[in-house]
């Protein structure tokens, strides 16, 4: 510590903030999750103004400030827009490294979804590859009803 404290004892207060939250997912995400869980189907929602289909679905179109109004079944295949392979065990990671995250454009959707890429040697992942949703065996109504996306090539 050297002499930066000029004779005082360095006092560090160790604590943490741990606040439970209960976030209402909203009607749009709730329906999306329910159908993932019960029917193993992926739904997008379409904007009546620009015609774009959003998956994950949005209540309001991020492009035109309009409420999306019609549900469309999309996927379960999609295209890998980009990805990363995380090699350091970053504190936020839920899984052991290497962890592959992908940005996936689900077939029939105009935006992209973040999720895991799995069932693959991570060195064989490439941008543009075709992937397909793998549903979790034990599904609840969350984004984790999809376990990961697996490459088809």
């Amino acid at each position, binding site marked *: 510590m050297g002499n930066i404290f000029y004779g005082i004892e360095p006092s560090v207060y160790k*604590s943490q903030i741990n606040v439970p939250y209960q976030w209402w997912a909203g009607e749009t995400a709730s329906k999306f999750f329910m159908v993932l869980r019960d029917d193993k189907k992926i739904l997008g929602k379409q904007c009546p103004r620009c015609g774009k289909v959003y998956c*994950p679905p*949005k209540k309001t179109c991020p492009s035109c400030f309009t409420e999306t109004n019609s549900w469309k079944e999309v996927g379960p295949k999609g295209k890998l827009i*980009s990805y*990363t*392979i995380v090699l350091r065990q970053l504190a936020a990671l839920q899984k052991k490294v290497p962890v592959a995250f992908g*940005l996936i454009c689900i077939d029939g959707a105009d935006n992209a979804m973040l999720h895991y890429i799995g069932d693959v040697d991570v060195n064989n992942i490439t*941008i543009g590859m075709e992937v397909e949703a793998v549903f979790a065996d034990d599904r609840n109504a969350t*984004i984790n009803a999809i376990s990961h996306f697996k490459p088809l090539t």
Partner: protein
Amino acid sequence: MDAAIIGIGMTTIEKNKIACNYADLAWEAVNKALADASITIDDIDNVITTSSDFWDGRTISCMAVGDACALRHKNCSAVEGDGTFGAAYGLSRTLSGDYKTTLVTAHSKGSESISSIITNAAFDPIYERSLGLDMISASAIQAKQYMNVTGTTSEQLALVSCKNHKNAKDNPYAQLPMDITVNDVLNSEMIAEPLHKLDCSPVSDGCCAIIIANADFVKKVKAKPVWIKGVAFCSDAYFMGDRDLTKTIALENAAKKAYVMAGITNPENEIDIAEIYDAFTYQELMWIEGLGLAEYGNAGKLLEKGIFNRDGKLPVNPSGGLLSGHPVIAAGLYRIAEIVLQIREEAGARQVNAKRGIAHGVNGICGQSHCVWILDKEK
């Protein structure tokens, strides 16, 4: 614009400023800024503090530095985000005519918490957060896509790191002055492909303060004013998947507006220096392009030619940038302070020949929103 920056104060940027709490940091930066402007705290009529509750570990974190900014019984407001946005708010207050001098501070101590967990909390809790992404892994996804689309190489990214760490050797405020080679960067730990450890900025501690004054007040004080010619900011969609991550539409919009305000038609030739938000190596290149200082996909090639070196045609981050020290929240305000020093020809060994410069700040994941400042020696 009838407003100028009349004083700046920076603490050194360090990995762990163990002997300072937030208020200590602000106390140092604010007093330096007042001394720099040759005014006293009584000359300040309103204060903007910039901070983040998550980084500080307290709600209403803006008040944590209140005593050090003398905001008691003064008009004070706060911004959560990068310091450039806090300063933009401060500027608009000054221009409103209700205030003559605005003190803007921005602080953070990354050393006191865990950046991965904090930046993970920026993700939507319903659709994304449980996956475990954070700022590094999300940026790696953007970097990969940007490189794929533009052909920018890992070697070009590494050159950004070499340039900025070398520049930091002449910046007494910088945390990581280093002589490194492209191979050092490529051989450093791969954290999240394609980002090596030396492609990423560190998490740092620091506080920066600036004083913005209206033109009438500037006339009355001894301070050397640096004039604000254009300021604009713009946001993109919140979700990464709702944006084209290889494009910088928000930055382009902000830059165009700022250039129009400043009467700039050809930024490549009319800007002498830029301090850019290089949280990651690839971002310096993307933001250079978004600012119109290089053609899309061409910044890496110009970098190889030395254009952005300190002795190049358009020095970028002669301070060493965020790669050499990244106090989140304060980082953009440091960019403004660095341009002020450069324009006043007080940047010491890192001085370049500059009459007009850009300071740039970013807020949000993968450059969701950008704030662009054009500063000038002349009014």
